[in-house]
């Protein structure tokens, strides 16, 4: 065969193969489409609850018809593709330029027929072949139909899948159902699970409704579209609603492997049932269909939310509480539970029979808090007891029983009155010593501490730690330090001043700067340090005095005991007791002697300490000698007796001396109080007389006024101005203080103070003083303006007083100065009658000066003798004498207005002195009260209810609600309490307090 023909034959063969393949694909896709559509139909019918047979028939029919048609078309088409001429003709149809050559060649692929020319055939073949080479098979037989068939099949598949998703039954489920294999398969699966023999069925649209146990006081809750997991505390009733995928005729609910209980089934698919959560596990439905086939829903979890016991927390100042017997134990507790706290009690040493109920609310609440509010005595404890205390709370779990939760344990040491007094004493002594340590540093620091800012800053850092021991003491002796007590005031004040100084150093000293600090700042720092030192010194001396007086009392008490013990030895010796017995009795003395020495040591040096040391040393020597003689059978019994007498005598003597000293000390205190009272009375008399003199000076001036009206008006004008200035600067200082509690705040107060001084001088009609004070006031106002600028330079955000106010203040000072100048000119004119009147008044003033000077001396003496001094007393008395002298001078010159002012100022100074004295007397009484031994005069054996203790550190408590007979009573009490008036500074506290109560 010619090559060209062969090539044409092969090319046609390829075309034939392509057509055949396309036909097969198209047919296959058509069959597939038919099958898928049939399946979809069956699915729809299954879902549509059509009878299985009908479904099968319909599906089978559709399948057979469709598939048969597809196959028939395919076979027909395949047969036709085998004809080469068909291919050639298809090509010829596409390429008319062949003009039949290809068909000709295709018909003669085996060679020319008959006599046909071979060469012509070859030529035709060649030309046909050339064209055929350029023809693409895809052009001859495009795949369009096959693709469409495939697309249709895809659509059919999509339809099936969509139905599977949309319908509750999936395509395969439908097939299984149609095949009748479902039950068998389920049986197999249950068999494999070994505990079930049912197939699983779909249960959806699960909704759970919870009804919680009543004690939880939780509202019922419904969860839609639940995943089926049920959770809640034991006792929770769970109501389930669900929907099955299939239709069933009956349903039951099974919890774990327990016997199923009937469930409600509506419409063959809607399920409803309920169970009670008791333990963790699973729940499921068992469903029976129309064929009596049973199916199981999936297992759903049951999770139990445990009702935990309450948690109890404590707020205590220390894990080891040392508490006076009659003081409330400072424990605050809070108890919290998931659902409710039923009761709270204090438990001692973990023993249930040592419980004291603290709270038992009428209605259990999820949280409770409160203070213990009990004294050791209330808890059945006695002085010396050391116990572990815990707070126990019980929940309100009615379903499984109340459970108890416990706090951590706290050690409680109970002190008796003596122990308490001892503890207070030790606190004061340690506080004194701590303050001495603080003081030592400041006293020995160089002055100024440094010149360079960096060094000064380092010094500032160093002094911060000096106050730390005070904090340690506060932690250690929290119980011995009531709020508002002398000790707490001392600590607060020292810390406040120390803190102020520290902040000042931080402001003036840059830690990176080697430059010298401003000299004025160093002067201010020195002043601040001086004030701090003075403050600490006063505190130390006051505490020292208290410590020593307490030590004296203790010494006196122990002295009595020792003397009694010695007399007991003496009595036995006189009764003929033998050596060994005397030795045994002396051991009591030996035990007491260290106490005596300790008390003497607390007095720290001094004649009394020396006396006790000498006495005990003597007694030791005598006791040693007695012991020697007692152990010696040959000893002279008379000598032994004499020594015992001597020993008793030594202690009798000591007791008498201590008693005497105690008495003297008390008399001295009483004497001091009497002196203060007498001085107050004398000063009140002097004040009254001075004011009377002032009144008569005014009357004399008014009666003989001759032209002094202008003077009065000028004074009045300048007084008004000074009041304005004083108020303005005070307001500015207050604002500045609020913004800046540190250094600038304090400086801002300086101009206000100065303005106040000016006001006083003007009020006193003291022209010279007023002019001096006005000059200083102007300097202060100028300085305040500079400070504002400086503060802004340091920190642009620093709030500062309005400069306008300062400028206004400056203007007022200038005006005051001007009026004072005018006053000076007006001051030197008086009528003869006025001169005569003032002359008489001068004599009266003279008569008042002498007793005032005497009173001044007495005031100075009292001030020196009081351990805490009498701040302001001496200055006031000096002022009084000075003003009286000024009055005298003014009266001599008939300057009645000035005299009147001086007399008023003198009376004011006397009033200030009286107030200073009253405060000193009050401080003295407070100090004495603080030194009273605990329990003194309080009737310790009474049990405490009637005790009117000065225990200011205990909070006032309203009884708990359950202590009222009805909640209504409680609410009424609350309302009444809330309406009660309290000082403004306590209003916020009151509101918070009642809010807490209401929350309980």
């Amino acid at each position, binding site marked *: 065969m010619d090559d060209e023909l062969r090539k044409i034959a092969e090319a046609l063969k390829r075309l034939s193969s392509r057509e055949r393949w396309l036909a097969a694909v198209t047919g296959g896709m058509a069959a597939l489409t038919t099958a898928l559509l049939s399946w979809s139909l069956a699915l729809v019918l299954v879902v549509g609850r059509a009878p299985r047979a009908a479904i099968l028939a319909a599906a089978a029919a559709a399948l057979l018809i469709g598939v048969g048609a597809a196959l028939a078309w395919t076979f027909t088409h395949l047969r036709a593709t085998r004809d080469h001429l068909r291919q050639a003709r298809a090509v010829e149809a596409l390429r008319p330029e062949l003009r039949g050559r290809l068909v000709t060649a295709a018909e003669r692929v085996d060679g020319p027929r008959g006599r046909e020319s071979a060469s012509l055939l070859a030529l035709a073949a060649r030309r046909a072949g050339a064209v055929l080479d350029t023809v693409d098979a895809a052009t001859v037989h495009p795949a369009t139909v096959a693709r469409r068939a495939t697309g249709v099949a895809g659509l059919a598949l999509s339809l099936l899948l969509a139905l599977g998703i949309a319908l509750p039954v999936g395509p395969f489920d439908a097939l299984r159902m149609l095949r009748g294999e479902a039950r068998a398969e389920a049986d197999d699966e249950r068999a494999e699970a070994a505990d079930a023999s049912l197939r699983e069925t779909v249960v959806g649209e699960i909704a759970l409704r919870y009804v919680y146990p009543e004690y939880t006081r939780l509202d019922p809750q419904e969860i839609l579209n639940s995943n089926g997991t049920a959770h809640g505390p034991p006792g929770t009733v769970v109501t389930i609603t669900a929907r099955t995928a299939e239709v069933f005729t009956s349903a039951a609910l099974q919890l774990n492997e327990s016997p199923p209980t009937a469930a409600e089934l509506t419409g063959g698919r809607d399920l409803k049932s309920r169970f009670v959560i008791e333990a963790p596990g699973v729940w499921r439905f068992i469903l029976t269909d129309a064929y009596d086939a049973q199916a199981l829903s999936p297992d759903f979890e049951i999770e139990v939310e445990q009702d935990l016991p309450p948690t109890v927390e404590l707020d205590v100042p220390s894990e080891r509480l040392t508490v006076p017997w009659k003081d409330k134990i400072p424990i605050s507790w809070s108890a919290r539970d998931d659902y409710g706290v039923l009761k709270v009690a204090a438990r001692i040493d973990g023993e249930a029979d040592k419980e004291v109920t603290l709270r038992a609310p009428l209605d259990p609440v999820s949280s409770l808090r409160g203070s213990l509010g009990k004294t050791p005595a209330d808890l059945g404890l006695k002085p010396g007891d050391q116990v572990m205390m815990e707070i126990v709370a019980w929940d309100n779990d009615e379903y499984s029983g109340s459970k108890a939760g416990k706090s951590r344990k706290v050690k409680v040491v109970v002190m008796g009155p003596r122990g308490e007094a001892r503890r207070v004493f030790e606190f004061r002594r340690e506080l*004194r010593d701590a303050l001495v340590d603080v003081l*030592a540093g400041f006293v020995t620091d160089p002055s100024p501490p440094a010149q360079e800012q960096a060094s000064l800053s380092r010094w500032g850092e160093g002094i911060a730690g000096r106050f730390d021991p005070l904090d340690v003491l506060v932690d250690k002796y929290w119980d011995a330090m009531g709020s508002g007590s002398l000790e707490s005031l001392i600590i607060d004040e020292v810390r406040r001043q120390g803190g102020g100084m520290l902040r000042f150093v931080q402001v003036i000293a840059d830690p990176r700067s080697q430059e010298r600090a401003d000299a004025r700042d160093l002067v201010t720092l020195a002043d601040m340090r001086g004030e701090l030192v003075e403050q600490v010194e006063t505190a*130390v001396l006051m505490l020292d005095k208290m410590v*020593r007086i307490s030590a004296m009392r203790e010494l006196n008490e122990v002295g009595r005991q020792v003397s009694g013990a010695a007399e007991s030895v003496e009595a036995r010796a006189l009764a003929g007791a033998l050596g060994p017995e005397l030795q045994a009795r002396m051991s009591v003395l030996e035990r007491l002697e260290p106490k005596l020495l300790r008390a003497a040591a607390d007095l*720290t040096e001094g004649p009394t300490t*020396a*006396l006790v040391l000498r006495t005990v040393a003597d007694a030791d020597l005598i006791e040693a000698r007695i012991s020697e003689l007692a152990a010696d059978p040959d000893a002279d019994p008379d000598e032994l007796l004499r020594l015992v007498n001597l020993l008793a005598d030594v202690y009798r003597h000591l007791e008498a001396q201590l008693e*005497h*000293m105690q008495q003297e000390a008390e008399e001295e205190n009483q004497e001091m109080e009497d002196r203060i009272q007498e001085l107050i009375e004398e000063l009140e008399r002097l004040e009254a007389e001075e004011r009377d003199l002032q009144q008569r000076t005014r009357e004399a001036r008014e009666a003989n006024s001759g032209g002094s009206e202008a003077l009065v008006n000028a004074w009045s004008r300048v007084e008004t101005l000074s009041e304005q200035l004083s108020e303005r600067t005070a307001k500015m200082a207050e604002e500045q203080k609020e913004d800046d509690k540190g250094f600038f705040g304090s400086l801002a107060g300086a101009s206000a103070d100065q303005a106040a001084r000016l006001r006083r001088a003007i009020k006193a009609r003291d022209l010279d003083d007023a002019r001096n004070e006005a000059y200083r006031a102007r300097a202060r106002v100028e300085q305040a303006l500079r400070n504002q600028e400086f503060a802004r330079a340091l920190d642009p955000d620093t709030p500062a007083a309005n400069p306008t106010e300062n400028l206004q203040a400056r203007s007022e000072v200038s005006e005051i100065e001007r009026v004072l100048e005018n006053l000076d000119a007006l001051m030197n004119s008086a009528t003869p009658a006025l001169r005569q009147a003032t002359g008489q008044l001068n004599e009266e003033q003279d008569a008042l000066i002498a007793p005032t000077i005497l009173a001044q001396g007495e005031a100075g003496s009292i001030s020196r003798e009081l351990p805490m001094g009498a701040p302001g007393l001496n200055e006031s008395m000096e002022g009084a004498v000075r003003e009286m002298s000024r009055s005298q001078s003014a009266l001599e010159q008939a300057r009645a207005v000035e005299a009147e002012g001086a007399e008023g100022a003198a009376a004011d100074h006397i009033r200030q002195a009286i107030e200073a004295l009253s405060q000193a007397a009050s401080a003295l009484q407070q100090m004495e009260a603080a030194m009273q031994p605990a329990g003194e005069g309080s009737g310790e054996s009474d049990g405490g209810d009637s005790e009117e203790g000065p225990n200011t550190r205990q909070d006032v408590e309203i009884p708990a609600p359950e202590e009222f007979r009805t909640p209504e009573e409680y609410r009424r009490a609350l309302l009444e309490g809330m309406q009660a008036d309290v000082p403004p500074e306590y209003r916020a506290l009151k509101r918070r307090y009642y809010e807490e109560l209401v929350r309980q």
Partner: protein
Amino acid sequence: MMSVMGFFAAAALWIGSAAAAGVADGLSCLDAHDLPCAQAVLEKQQKKGDDSPALAVLEGRVRFHEGDFRAAAVAFDRALLSNPDDERVTRDRDLAIATAEVAEGLIETTRGDITVAHHPGVDRVLVDGVIDSLSAARERIAPLLGGVTPVPLRVEIYPTGTSFVVASGLPPEAVKTTGVIAISKWHRLLITSPRALGRGYGWQDTIVHEWIHLVVSWHTRDQAPVWLQEGIAKSLDTLWRVDGYALPVRSQSALAQAIRDDDFVTFEEMHPSMAFLPSADRTALAYAQVATMMLFLRQEKGEQALVDVLERVGEGEDARDAVAQVYNGGDFDGFEADWRLFIEGLDLVQERLASLPVVLDGEGDEFDNDPSLAGREDLAGKARLGDLMAMRGHHDAALKYYEQASPEGEPAGPVLTQHTAEALIALGRDREAESLLRDNLVFYDESAANHRLMAELLIRDGRKLNAREHLLHSAAINPYDIAVHEALVTLYEEAEDDSGASRHKGYLDILNYRDTVAF
């Protein structure tokens, strides 16, 4: 006095005028400070069988002078049976009973004609000193006064200030104000034990001082006014141990100030007793005045001068006249003027020195013992702060406070000095401490503690001889300090002085209750 006379008048009517005259003689003897005379009258009347209340009064007083207080109380009780309203006798009875009570615990030690009543405890350490000083005084001072008294000496050492006040019959306030701690009365010498003062005091000089009063009373028939008594006693009371009188520094200070202020204590103020002067400083000035007067007189007129004065006073001459007679033939103003010139010519210490306060029985605080701090609360407060600093180991800070506690214009007191020195020693500044102590001892020589501290410094520095002097001085003021006696024993032994060592060992035995002799 009037009631006593009334009593005797009634007694005379009752028992007869002869017997009454006898009792009156006896009482007169006592008034004239002549106990042997009164004893003789009493014995004579008793032999006569007189059992009158008046004689009971005489007996009570004689027994009281003799120191037999119980017997005195019994006698007074007997006298009061017939006249229970007699206030004077009642007072005498009460005093006898009170004295008996406070003296009950005392024991007596007698050597020769000297009896010492003392507490049986460590006060036994005083007995040697009492005997020694009185013996020396009899030998060295009595000739300056005209001889010893023919009466046995009775010294009563009261262990506390309280018991002394009771036994002396002085008002407690007066004792507190003037610091009287010893008295010569009723033929007895009553002193407060140095132990009652804590810091001790020059008790041997004090005993001699009181003994001089007794001798002067004897020689003047108790007619010497108080200024003369005190002047003589003060100017002689140290001569038992030293040859010449040295005006104490505090007296110099008081005189210097008085000269500056022209403010002297008048003779009228000194009457009836120095104990009633308003302040201790005023008392010190009065002592200084009269002491220097007697010193001046003796210096100008020789050792017979005082004998002559006493004789004249004993004969009833006014004391000032007697002094004037002896000095210049009768011009007391001239004497006074010369005396003024004399004291103005003395090289007196100008510093203001306060008297050492008398703080008895452990009362007060330590600073009450310090003349520069007592009654000055401001300074005492600073000193206390210093003590607290030292107690906490802040000796530098303590020194700052001690400095602040030092008074302006006068030397620091001995207690303040002691504490300052201790702080310096704690800081290792021994030299400064020594210098401070040395300077201060010039002003306050009666500080046993500072002598002891000084001795410790000297011993540490190897200057043991000087140290011994300071220790002896300390022991003389405060004989109860065991450490001082121990140190002295050591120093004496090192110096191979067995006698000295033995003496102080003896004191140690007493102080350690190992000496049973007194029992």
